[in-house]
């Protein structure tokens, strides 16, 4: 049977089956099991109403349980076993002994810092800038467009941008064509040294500000810490993470300042160790910035006009309005966007597979796991890697569930 016909039949059977199930089960409940007639009519109605939700929910719960909840348990078991026998943490210790795993972890951490930060920042900037111009909607629509493109399609698009030809041949990759314009003069110094340094310093300043905001209560109010030890611990952890990012970015400034750039030579961007990670991240930032923009733009519009008018009357300039009035009011949304992109980053797989397949030290966890499971057929270590991804997602999962519980109360 041709798959297309099979697909049509599946739609009919699937949809028909669903409708049939819901209709028949309701009918059964109302007419046969608990009919609202006779001596027990009232009690029967109540009983039927107690059971009905579960009729409505059953297919969904069954599918969720089988396709998402059960695999979590099964994968944890697989990660602790080898060919069906329990081996404790052996798979994990084997995984920890592999340099490729640590490379993936390092790269994943880089991705986790850079991609959400840049996507959110770009999204916020575009959302703010397009708010007041007449062609803002067109601009937004174009920046949002990459959301519709598959990761693989985006990889092809960016591979052309990064394409490199040997020296002397015409360059067909945009990046190399631009790169060859720089000959090491003042322009190069400005664009390739001063600008990146300024950008990294701005980022570092933002991080430093965050560290100060988060860390100040720890330093000034140790008694408050004792009262809420968990929040205090989180604060200390956040400060430590922020400080390490700060250290990394300052080291990055030093690196950029002292780097000898090979002017006039075409570069194979995807094989430059360490920096190639950033060229891969650019693809995801390109895709995700539109998502951040759409959500942040809606949040910006929901800000009450009065707060902004009051600020204008008090003589605030546009930058003060943006950073002191608007950003604090949409902080909740920024956090949501950030965490959503974080989850996407943790699962990123297609981009790395399509562009470098983890060569040249660009491996990430999701692709490492795929390698182990489906190329090396090492299900134990692959499952262990999957569990690491799960562990990294868990804080966000807990946070989301906590928020929903709070809302529903």
């Amino acid at each position: 049977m041709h798959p297309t016909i099979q697909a049509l039949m599946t739609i009919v059977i699937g949809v028909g089956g669903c409708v049939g199930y819901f209709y028949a089960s309701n009918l059964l409940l109302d007419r046969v099991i608990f009919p609202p007639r006779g001596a027990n009519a009232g009690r029967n109605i109540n009983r039927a109403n107690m059971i009905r939700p579960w009729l409505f929910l059953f297919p969904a719960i069954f599918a969720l349980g089988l396709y998402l909840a059960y695999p979590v348990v099964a994968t944890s078991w697989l990660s602790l076993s080898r060919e069906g026998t329990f081996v404790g943490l052996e798979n994990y210790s084997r995984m920890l002994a592999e340099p490729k795993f640590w490379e993936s972890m390092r790269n994943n951490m880089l991705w986790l810092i850079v991609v959400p930060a840049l996507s959110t920042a770009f999204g916020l900037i575009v959302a703010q800038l397009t708010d007041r111009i007449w062609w803002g909607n067109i601009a937004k629509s174009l920046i949002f467009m990459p959301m519709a493109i598959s990761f693989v399609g985006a990889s092809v698009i960016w591979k052309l941008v990064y394409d490199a030809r040997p020296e002397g041949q015409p360059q067909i990759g945009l990046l190399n064509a631009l790169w060859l314009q720089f000959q090491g003069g003042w322009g190069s110094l400005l664009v390739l040294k001063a600008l990146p340094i300024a950008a990294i310093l701005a980022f570092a300043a933002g991080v430093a500000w965050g560290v100060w905001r988060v860390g100040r209560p720890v330093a000034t109010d140790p008694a408050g810490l004792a009262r809420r030890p968990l929040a205090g611990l989180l604060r200390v952890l956040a400060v430590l993470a922020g400080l390490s990012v700060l250290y990394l970015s300052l080291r990055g400034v030093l690196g950029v300042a002292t780097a000898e750039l090979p002017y006039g030579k075409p570069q194979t961007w995807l094989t430059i160790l360490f920096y190639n990670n950033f060229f891969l991240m650019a693809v995801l930032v390109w895709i995700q910035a539109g998502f951040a923009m759409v959500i942040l733009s809606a949040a910006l519009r929901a800000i009450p006009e009065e707060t902004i008018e009051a600020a204008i009357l008090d003589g605030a300039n546009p930058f003060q309005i943006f950073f002191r009035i608007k950003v604090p009011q949409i902080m909740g949304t920024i956090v949501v966007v950030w965490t959503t992109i974080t989850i996407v980053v943790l699962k990123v797989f297609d981009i790395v597979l399509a562009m470098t397949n983890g060569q040249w030290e660009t491996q990430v966890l999701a692709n490492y796991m795929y390698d182990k499971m489906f190329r090396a057929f090492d299900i134990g270590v692959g499952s262990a890697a999957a569990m690491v991804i799960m562990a990294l997602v868990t804080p966000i999962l807990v946070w989301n569930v906590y928020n929903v519980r709070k809302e529903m109360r």
Partner: protein
Amino acid sequence: MDRVAGRKSALVWTVHLSVLFLVALWVVPTLGLFISSFRTADQISSSGWWSALATQERQLPAIRVEGEPELRDGLYVIEGTLFPRERSTLSAWGTSSLKPQAYQPGDVAELKDGMTLSVDDKGRYVLTSPDPLEGKRLPRIFATATQPPEFTLDNYRQVLVGANTGISIGQAFLNTATVAIPATVIPILIAAFAAYALAWMDFPGRALLVAAVVGLLVVPLQLALIPLLQLHNWVGIGKGYLGIWLAHTGFGLPLAIYLLRNYMAGLPRDIIENARVDGATEFQIFTRIILPLSFPAIASFAIFQFLWTWNDLLVALVFLGTGNDQLVLTGALVNLLGSRGGDWEILAASAFVSIAVPLFVFFAMQKYLVRGLLAGSVK
């Protein structure tokens, strides 16, 4: 006041320019591949796509003189043209690869054995020889020519039928549609019923279930691959379309339930209570009132799920086979990147076949997509 107004307009201009810059940054990569998909392989490899609209000067591959000699005034003459189809303009030519630009158009080159060759600026050449030309190696012409912009649909024709790539993108397109459409339609009803129960029915454990759905929303599907593949093999489905439909249905359900529940919970309570008072059963309320009213949320989810299943690579790699009858577009693209990584005309056209449908859906239904995004993440 003047100063303030002046500053204001400068600011507005900065905003316009920065937005323009950002939009260009976002559009140019796609545009580059799009333009490349309409250029011939020669053009792509000899100049960047940004020069596609300019006339280009480039050196053509060597062309050997050929044709039937005619006897004219005691000389054997072959006439012909270098550019039978295109309107190119010759700027220089030569007869050896060492000196490809030795002669100007119209010059007459003296070759060995008394042969002469001349080429004019339209690419028409005349070879004369005092001796018969049978069995002789005729000279080659190295031409440098400027060519007008030229675009072609050949790349698309080639990839769609899969001539000389071994991978038919046309077939992969059908396979992708076969995966994506049922995987989009089936979860909707299942999720809608569950969402209604979670939004409007009162039963113990409801809050817990909602929390569970939110939790499952972020479970990485990497965890599900091996256990589910083992399950499918055990049940007897194995790798195939049925398996991937089920998998996509399962993976799409949390988002579907979450989006639809949020939307349904926001519907006016009066309508539902009135219907209950009037004696409608829950099933009637659901099918007659809730389902039609929830259309926007259903559309949002359908777009998400369609984009996601159409663009997915991982689930297809794991749950589908690798044969031509089951290879989806993303998988075909990855294969092409591996095997024909330098053939940009094939890659570009294939990539555009694969992103055409999502782009169309995106632009046609952007409203619902945005609404769904907002419902899914902003509180």
